[in-house]
């Protein structure tokens, strides 16, 4: 079955608002969690990642929250901009498997002016 799930396929946020993207996972062994951004007709690029030894990581307008007990992690984008409009893929990896990441299906974020 799918090990990483993004339950909401799309989200629309007003410019300047907070975008929250969610991801649930099943494998207790996952110790690496990442968010990739994908523009149409482009390949995914890494936005931000976090390891299981922390609950939160901030990088500018981006924050990843990790809830290990709930097997859930999220991406918060503050002061959302129209250029944040893209598909966001969550991914998780298991220690000992190198870069064998399991990806979610993706969620389309639209930031409206």
């Amino acid at each position, binding site marked *: 079955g*799918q090990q990483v799930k993004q339950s909401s396929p799309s989200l629309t946020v007003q410019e300047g608002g907070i975008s929250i993207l969610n991801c649930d996972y099943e494998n207790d062994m996952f*110790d*690496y969690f*990442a968010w*990739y951004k994908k523009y149409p007709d*482009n*390949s*995914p*690029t*890494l936005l931000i*990642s976090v*390891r299981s030894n922390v609950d939160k990581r901030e990088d500018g307008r981006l924050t990843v929250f990790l809830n290990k007990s709930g097997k859930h992690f999220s991406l918060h984008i503050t002061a959302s901009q129209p250029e944040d409009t893209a598909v966001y*893929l969550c991914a998780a*990896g*298991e*220690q*000992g*498997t*190198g*870069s*064998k*990441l399991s*990806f*979610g*299906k993706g969620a389309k974020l639209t930031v409206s002016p």
Partner: protein
Amino acid sequence: AQTIHQWPVAEIKAVGSPLSLGCTIKGKSSPNLYWYWQATGGTLQQLFYSITVGQVESVVQLNLSASRPKDDQFILSTEKLLLSHSGFYLCAWSLHWGGSAETLYFGSGTRLTVL
């Protein structure tokens, strides 16, 4: 700086015909290489990985094969395409193979349509 080049950009092929997709990484020696595939509406899945020349491991069975003939080259192929092979193929590289997952750097992808 490292660059990753995938070819072709798109292919339209008939069922039963052969396929060869290529990927070249420049500016990084001995990268770990991967092939990913996403069916329309589906999830990005890892198909193959390679940590060194001549060695390829299969992750998902899709009647495809992969080879790494050179340190900087990764090839995905099949002798007989199926309709189910349609989708988006991405080559990727990473720096390390070790205890934990590392960042993937993706190529621009190949859109394959099998008719």
